[in-house]
C-alpha cells in the first residue's frame, strides 16, 4: 500500500535543482527537472558518497559535485563508463505539492 506523505510545495525546489529531506537514516535528495518532474534518490553518490543534491541537473540526470559522475534520476544507476547504483524512492507531484511514499522511506530505514 502506498502511503503518500506531503513533503512541500513543488516551487520550494528550484527547476533543475534539488533539496534534501532528512530521515532517521540519512538524507533523501528530491530533484525537480526543467519539465517539473520530481525524483527522490539517496543523497549519496555510489563513488564516494558525494551529496547528489548539490550537483548540476540536466535532462533527467544529475552530475555529482565531487567528481562528476552522472547519475540517472529515473533509475539511480550511474551513466557512462562508471558503474554503481543509488536507491530511488517513489515520488510524485499532485496539485503543486511534492509527495513521497512513506512506506518506502520506512522500509529503507529497516533495510
Amino acid at each position, binding site marked *: 500500500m502506498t502511503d503518500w506523505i506531503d513533503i512541500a510545495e513543488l516551487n520550494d525546489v*528550484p527547476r533543475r*535543482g534539488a533539496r*534534501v529531506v*532528512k*530521515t532517521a537514516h540519512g538524507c533523501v535528495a528530491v530533484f525537480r527537472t526543467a519539465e517539473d518532474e520530481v525524483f527522490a534518490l539517496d543523497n549519496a553518490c555510489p563513488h564516494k558518497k558525494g*551529496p547528489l543534491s*548539490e550537483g548540476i541537473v540536466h535532462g*533527467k540526470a544529475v552530475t555529482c559535485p565531487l567528481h562528476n559522475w552522472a547519475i540517472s534520476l*529515473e533509475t539511480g544507476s550511474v551513466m557512462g563508463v562508471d558503474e554503481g547504483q543509488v536507491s530511488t524512492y517513489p515520488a510524485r507531484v499532485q496539485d503543486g505539492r511534492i509527495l513521497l511514499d512513506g512506506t518506502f522511506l520506512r522500509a529503507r530505514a529497516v533495510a
Partner: protein
Amino acid sequence: MKKLVIIGAGMASGRALERLIDADPEAYDVTLFNAEPRGNYNRIMLSPVLSGEKSYAEIVTHDDDWYAQNNVTCRFGEPVTGIDRDRKVVIGTKGEVPYDKLLIATGSAPFIIPVPGHDKPGVIAYRDLDDTNAMINAADAPGKSAVVIGGGLLGLEAAAGLALRGMSVTVIHLMGHLLERQLDPAAGYLLQKDLEKRGIKVHCQGATKAILGEDRAEAVLLEDGTVYDADLVVMAVGIRPETRAATDAGLDVGRGISVDAQMVTSDPDILAVGECVEFDGQLFGLVAPLYDQAKVVAATLLDQPAAFTPKELSTKLKVTGCDLFSAGDFADGEGREDIVFRDPSRGVYKRLVIEDDQLKGAVFYGDTSDSNWFFGLIRDGEDISDMRETLIFGPAYQGGSPVDPLSAVAALPRDAEICGCNGVCKGQIEDAIAGGATDLGAVRAITKASGSCGTCTGLVEQVLSVTLGDDFKMPAAQSICGCTDMTHEDVRRMIKSQELKSMPAVWQECGWKTSCGCHICRPALNYYLLADWPLDYKDDPQSRFINERKHANIQKDGTFSVVPRMWGGMTNPAELRAIADAAEKYNVPTVHVTGGQRIDLLGVKGEDLPAIWADLNKAGLVSGHAYSKGLRTVKTCVGTDHCRFGTQDSTGLGIKLEKKLWGSWTPHKVKLAVSGCPRNCAEATCKDIGVVCVDSGYQIGVGGAAGMDVKETERLADAATEEDAIELATAFMQLYRENGKYLDRPYKWIAKVGLDWVKERVVDDLESRKALVERFELSQSIYRTDPWAEHVKERAESYQPLANLTLEAAE
C-alpha cells in the same frame, strides 16, 4: 415531455444540445439559462474578433432562429442563483423553473490575482464578448498602452490582438519562458522573438506586486521594482471551474464538479459538462475533450450507453505568424531519445521525444505543417522504428536534408560581425572568397579577419566552408561539448555579434543538438552571457557548479568551507573575534590560515551557512569568493607603513584594487598581489595580475601562475600613479572577461592572443582603456555586492532541508 434545464449556454452545452436534438427532438422540453445576455458563440474565435480579423456576427454558433426552431426556451442575461434539489427547481434571478434532468455547463471563471488595485476600473479578464469589447474600446484612442499579465495562450492572444489594434503592449510572465506548459525553453525563445518583432515587450520572471493609479489603472508595479504604464490591464493568469451553483446545492465538488464517465454528478438527475467538471482528477480547458463530453451527455440523457475517456491533446496558438505546436509528453530523460532539429536561418525548431519505438511528445516552432501527422503518431502510439532516422523531416521526407552543423553560420546575415578586433563582417569575407581567397591565410591577408586575437578563426573557417562547400577542408576544432559543434570562441562571437541574451537564444541560433544543454556547456554559457550582457541577462544559479551556487567550497564529506574577505590581507581584533565566535558557535572543526592571506573555516554544515554568514556580516565581513571563477584574494605586504625597504603603500593599493574588483565574475579565478619592493614578499610575480612597487611607481605584470603550471608574470606596463595602476589592472581584467575562454586562466588566454594584442587595447589605446574600465564598472553595478548578505536576506530558507522526517520515522 420531460423537462431539461441547462445552466450556461456555452460551447459545451451548445454541442450537447445539437447532439440531443439531432438524436431525438421530442425527448425534452429544454430551458437554457445564460449569465451572458446572448446565446452560444464560438468563444475560441474571440481572439480574431479582438484583432479585427472577424466580427462578432461571424462567430455566433446558435442564433435566435436556431433556438426558436428547436423550441429551446432561452433565459439569456439571467444568471442562476440556486438549485433546490428537494423540489427539483432551478432558481434564476427572474423566477424558478422545474426540472426532471438538470445539466450544469457553467464553464470557468477567470482567476484574478488579488494584488492591491486589482479591482480598479481598467483591469479586466479575457473570457467573453464583453471583455473583448472592453479591450477594443480601450485601444480606440491612439498612444495607449496595455499590460497583459500572464504569458499563456490567452494572454498572448490578447497581447497580439491589442498590438494589432495599435496599443503598445507589455506581457508580464511569472515563469522563465512563455507558454511554459506547452513549450520547452527553446521554442519559448523563438516565440518571444517573434512577439518582440511585432513590438510586444515580454518580461519573464516578473511577479506583479500592485496595480497603480488614482481612480483607474494607470500602471503595473512588479516585485523587482519595474513599473509599466498601463491604460488597460488584462489578467490572463488562469481559469478555475465555475462551481458555485453546484457547491451551494451540495453536490460533490473537488476542483471542479465531480462527474463519472457518463457525466453524471453525485445526484443522479444532475449532469455536468464542460470546463466546470472534474473527471478522474483532471480538469479540461480546451474544446476537443468538451465535445467528446457533450456526445456522452446527450447519450446519457437519452438513456443510451456511452462513456467519456480523455484523449491526448495538442496545442496551437492563434496568433497569425507565430506557428507553434506541442503535444504529448516532451520531458527528456534516460530511455528517451531526443531528436532535435534547428534551422537558425528560418527560425525553425523541432523536437521529438521517442521512447520504446514510439513517439511520446513533440514541440515545433516555425514550421508546423506536419503537426497533424506527428500528433497522429503520438495519439495512436504507432511503432516508428522503421522511420526513426528520418522521422524528424516529416511524412514527406524521403530526401530531407540532414542537420547541417554549419547551419548557424550559414544563417548569419552579411552584416554580422565575425572579427571583433578588426570589425570585419561576414559579407566582406564572402566577397574576399568570391575574389579568389580560398584559405584562411588569404582571407586574413585581404580582410584582416582573425589576424589579431585570433579567437574568431573558427568562424572565419566556417564561413569559408559554407561558401566553398567541399572545396574547403575544415580543420577539426574542439567543440564545447557534445551539445554543439561550435568552439567556445565561435559561440562567444555569436553571443556578441548576434546579441544573444539568453541560453535558449544561444541554443537556437548556434544550432545546439540537445534541447537544453548539459553540465559542461551550461556553466560556460552562463558566464559568457552575464559577462557580455550584465544588464539584460539574469544569472542562472542552476547552471553553476555547487560552490558558486552556494557561495562556499564543497568538501569531500559534503560540508562547506567559509572564507571571509580580508581586504589586502588586513584584519583586526574585532574581525578575528567575530571569526573565533563563529567558529565556536557553529562547531567548526578546522580553522586554517590560507595561502591567500586570510582565514578558512572548514567543515561548516550546509544548513548553517546562512546563519554563520549573518554573524560574520554583522562584524562587517563579506564573502571572500574563495569558491568562484572570479576575483579571489589580493595579497599585499606591509609596504611603506612598516617596512624599511617599502617604496609605495602596497597595502593601501592592494585594498583599493580588491574593493574595485571584488564580486566580478571571470572566465577562471583571478588572483592579485601587490609587493612594496622588488624583494616581492607578496609573491606578486606569480599572480594573474601582480604589482611590484618601485621608487618611480608601479610595475604591472600579468599572466603569472603558481598552480599546476608555474609562470612568471610578463610586464604589461609601468604606471606612475596609483590611479593609473588601478585603471590598467581594471582594463586588463575586463579585456580578459570579454575575451577569455571559460576555464582559461589569464596566462593561457594571453598565450593565445599574444601580450602585444593585450597591450594595444589596455595600455596604448587610451580610448579603449577607458571604454574597458567603463564596461567593467557597468557590470560591477550589478555584481559588486556581497552574495552572502543577499542569500541571508532572500534565500536562507533554500539552505534548509525540504522536510525533516526523522521524528516521524522514529515513532
